């Protein structure tokens, strides 16, 4: 099951990985996702802290340092690859949608 957990990323998973292109701790991640999505995506604390250790276990993110008992994470090359794979999946979906539009 663990290997298949992140076969497809949900929007929340996607944005958490996306904002971690620069080092960030938990609270900053939540704020940053709200900011870049104009509050359309809100990450609950429980969701974030369930996902961070799982992403770390899958080597999508890594612990960079600990400051004042706050863990700071950053995206790994594997995490970036995962995001690009997600991009391909989304592009394919858009392409299919475009084809339907053309037919009309």
């Amino acid at each position, binding site marked *: 099951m663990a290997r298949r957990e992140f076969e497809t990323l949900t929007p929340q998973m996607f944005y958490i990985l996306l904002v971690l292109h620069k080092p960030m701790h938990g609270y900053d991640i939540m704020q940053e996702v709200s900011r870049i999505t104009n509050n359309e995506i809100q990450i*609950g604390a429980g*969701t974030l802290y369930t996902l961070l250790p799982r992403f770390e276990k899958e080597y999508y993110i890594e612990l960079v340092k600990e400051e004042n008992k*706050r863990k700071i994470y950053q995206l790994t090359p594997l995490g970036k690859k995962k995001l690009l794979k997600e991009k391909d999946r989304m592009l394919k979906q858009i392409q299919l949608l475009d084809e339907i539009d053309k037919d009309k």
Partner: protein
Amino acid sequence: MSKTKYKFLQIKKAILYNELETLLEKEARNGWILIQFTNYFLKFKKDKPMNIKYQIDFSSPTLEYKELLKYEGYEFVDNNEELSIYKNHNHYAQELQTDETTRLLALIKYFSLKHPLLYIIVDFLFFLFIYFFKLLISGPKTLGHIYETLGFYMIYFFFITFFVCSILNVCQNVAAKYSLNREIHHKEPCLLPFTIFNKLYDVSLVLILIFFIYFFITRLLVSPFSIGIIVLLIIVIYLIQYIYKKILYQIEPGWIQKLLKTFVIITCIFISIYFSNTEIPVIMDTTPYMSDSNVTPEKSNNLLIASNTWSLSNDNQTDTLKYESINSCLNKDIALEVFQNKIIDYEREARMFTDEEIEKITEENESWSLNDVPYFSYEQAIQHMSVYQNSLIDQCYYNDDVVIALKDNIVLICYNQPEDNYMDNIINHYFTK
């Protein structure tokens, strides 16, 4: 003093059915605020009716996480292992779980197989312990034998029930995982298998409870002192549970937590083994017929039979020289079964080979086992014993070694005491009021 109330609730079931938060919020609106919970009970404190938002969570409560929740207005209520409950007085506060897939993944982890499998291993280790210490009993397969050794059968009953209970716990967790996995793959949840295993699990827990009630009552009948030991044991187990389920989950996770957990589990096993093998000495208030300062008294009670026994062994404590046992049974029927069982048992004892004979058989056949001397039926057994009649008793059979007498619900067994007028003396001693 503020009023409190307890509510019975199966937490696992309520979580799987997504009913826990709704129930807690409803209770808060009626003025009952949750203060503690276990796997089966919720404890509420009476307060003014409030509109509280409750959230369940499975994340490790690190300092960073706790600070973040505090910032969002959440207060920690209580935890039970990895399950924590938080409350927020702002009903419109951000949900802790905002992603359904992540919530389901956390739930799948909560229905872990690790703990139930650990219980199965512990149960197996206890069974091995009992086996190696030769507490397993052998004897004729009669009703009287079961009555006499009810305590041992109850221990078997406990081990078997505990084993079945752990297996059902595994099954219900597997069923929960199956249903949650279906939900992750956007299929309808399948809760029926979980519900069935959950009900069976409850039945097995009730059976275990029956064992503990039995154990408590029998100990109470033997000696009130032993109740002190049981209470002490309950306090120790409660403290261990408290440390294991509450405190350990409230400190920073890491190797210290893992080390402490291992320590607690090992301590728990050793304390349980120690107490399960504890025999409490009981001072007797009845005098035996035989008069010897080295007689060892013993008292036992298994709810069906209360026994006073006295035995006299040789200096090395290897052979019983003399033995007396007066058994007071719950009713005449049980007494008759016990009486017949004793006759079957001691008649076989009389046919048992001597050490020299065993050596000879071993030399000839290369092997010998106790099963080579079979048990006779009661009717066959009494043919090999003599009848003794006395107006004080209902029935009595004897041979060179043993006297077995029955009077109403009393069974008397006296072993190895050859002397003149012995039969009359001992019957008079025990049955003349």
